[in-house]
């Protein structure tokens, strides 16, 4: 085991709002999001495409693509609000205190320079160290991620690595300056499953051994079940449920979470999947009340009012009137009938 201090809150996000202006109005891609991340914890963020999970991830690093912008909220890293930092200060924070890895590692490297040069520069850009020391740090980081013969691979260019190995280099690069938080946006989507398993094991080991706080953005519930401690479920820009990984899978309390679980072919009991009807709402034309209401089999009259996040028990919170009233979702024996009756079947 290690002497790393776990369970200390390192990142806390409060009321974060990130918007994109469009022709049809300003869209809240991240709509009053708040959560905390502890050292050594792996927090999963799941949701459909367009739910705002990637915008949220990019907001944390100040990497929201223009014309999108953060309009309000706080991102407290070790107690300091990143939103008050200048561009130059943010550049220092990125990579040294909070780092991000992306879906497609090959795009994150310059094709014309060796991995060694790019890793070394990532060190010297942030710190006054000799090239020799920087080089040693780079080799050490490659060792952490399980790269065989790291000193030799330093001389290789990005195209000489396989996808899985390059993702390891990417992770090594993000760890060079020992950040407290790693944001991983679909880090294995481009990789084969046997390689994916290795990368997940690596991320988990880094969290346990080094106390790295990890935010894993994914649509893959298998990955969430495999390595996450806690889960945030996003729908149409909002958090609809937050819970421990066991609570989410054993006792989902938002109808959308239930729908996501029912959509998994591994969990199918019959020859059909219990598919949710319809699709996500357009962000320019959101329902006035609960944003999931038009697709919801549990919906009642009060759902025409916007629900707030409500604490259920043991750190599980849910944005659902029905769950709030019943202390969890009630059984719905006539779910098919209710759906057909609402003209959504």
């Amino acid at each position: 085991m290690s002497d790393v201090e776990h369970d200390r809150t390192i990142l806390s996000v409060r009321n974060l709002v990130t918007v994109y202006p469009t022709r049809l109005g300003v869209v809240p891609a991240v709509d009053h999001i708040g959560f905390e991340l502890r050292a050594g914890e792996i927090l999963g963020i799941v949701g459909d495409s367009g739910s705002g999970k990637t915008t949220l991830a990019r907001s944390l690093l100040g990497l929201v693509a223009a014309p999108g912008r953060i309009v309000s909220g706080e991102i407290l890293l070790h107690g300091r609000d990143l939103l008050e930092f200048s561009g130059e200060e943010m550049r220092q924070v990125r990579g040294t205190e909070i780092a991000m890895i992306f879906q497609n590692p090959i795009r994150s490297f310059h094709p014309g320079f060796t991995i060694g040069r790019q890793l070394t520069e990532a060190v010297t850009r942030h710190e006054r160290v000799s090239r020799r020391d920087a080089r040693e740090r780079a080799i050490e980081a490659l060792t952490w991620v399980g790269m065989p013969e790291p000193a030799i691979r330093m001389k290789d260019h990005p195209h000489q690595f396989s996808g899985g190995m390059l993702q390891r280099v990417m992770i090594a690069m993000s760890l060079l300056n020992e950040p407290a938080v790693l944001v991983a946006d679909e880090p294995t989507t481009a990789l084969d499953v046997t390689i994916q398993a290795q990368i997940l094991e690596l991320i988990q080991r880094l969290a346990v051994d080094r106390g790295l706080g990890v935010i894993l953005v994914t649509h893959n519930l298998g990955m969430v079940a495999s390595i996450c401690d806690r889960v945030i479920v996003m729908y149409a820009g909002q958090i609809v449920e937050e819970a421990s990984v066991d609570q989410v899978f054993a006792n989902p309390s938002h109808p959308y979470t239930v729908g996501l679980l029912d959509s998994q072919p591994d969990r199918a009991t019959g020859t059909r999947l219990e598919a949710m009807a319809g699709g996500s709402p357009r962000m320019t034309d959101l329902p006035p009340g609960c944003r999931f209401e038009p697709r919801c089999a549990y919906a009642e009259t009060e759902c025409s009012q916007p629900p707030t996040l409500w604490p259920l028990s043991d750190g599980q919170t849910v944005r659902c009137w029905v769950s709030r009233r019943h202390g969890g979702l009630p059984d719905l024996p006539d779910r098919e009938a209710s759906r057909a009756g609402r003209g959504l079947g």
Partner: protein
Amino acid sequence: MKRAAPDADSGKQAMALLRLDGVSVHFRLRGRGRGGGVVRAVDNVDLTIDEGEVLGIVGESGCGKTTLGRVIVGLQSPTAGNVVVRGEKRPLRQRPGANARRDGFQMVYQDAAGSLNPWKRIGWSIAEPLRNEGMRKPAMRERVLELLDQVGLPDSLIDQYPGELSGGQQQRAAIARALAGRPRLIVLDEAVSSLDMSTQAQVLNLLKDLAERHPVNYVFISHDIAAVDFMSDRVAVMYLGKIVELEDAHDRKSPLVHPYSITLRSAVPVPDPVVERRRNRIVLTGPVASATDLPSGCRFHTRCPIAQPLCADAEPELASTSETSRVACHFAGEFDDRYAAARAGTTGGSG
């Protein structure tokens, strides 16, 4: 789902919609320093698809699953071997797509937008196979509306452009287009992989409904093993151009036997934290072999956790383990014992 299979072998031959006999697809590499190199994308594959059966194909990128799918549908001619469709040998033709049209086979790709012309209305794209048949306009519109209804899209979409549709709607439109000519077989190559989970579930259900209402076969190709299991009657596991295991998806009692299939399944995380915590992943060691420079003997032996000297010398045959299952491994059925022994021997209990 699966129709009753006849007992006699001869009867089965008559039932087969499609049979591959020793089919290979070898691509010659061009360019400096690569002269003479050959990629064995598909290498000597024997396979039968029965009428009404859904065959799944799984494997990692580069294993040849897409090329095999293209051979089945008739968009790629084999460089060796024969394709027999309903008892008749498929002719070698030069023009791409000629065989697919003759046999009434269709393919649906991951990128649905790619099979819909972005400058034309949805109705136009769906009707394209019908125009090729020479169907007249009023009948055509009627048929397109019928197709839209079958795939659960509103009539109004007929006059919209692909860019106005969501990903799920585009994939449904691509399926409608594939259905237009009443195909006997549709090869679905990662057809739901780019969709959100909830949309993917809708499209999988749609495919199952369509198969119940129409006499259509699917070949379901994906890296997503859970989706393949859910859809298929039989699953072919491919590794470097070969089928290493054919398993009966309905017979989960008989365990997998090929070390590669076992490894592949152990690598896939399942959406259940309780199962995940108890799981022991099998981690592959050894270099990934290349389809241009195949290992001797069994092509998985360089990475196989239970490989023996024999495996480097002799290539195992795809042999029957039951009426519906086949496996190509010298030590089929001995994985658990041999893996435990191999781990005890090499790690010395340090793991």
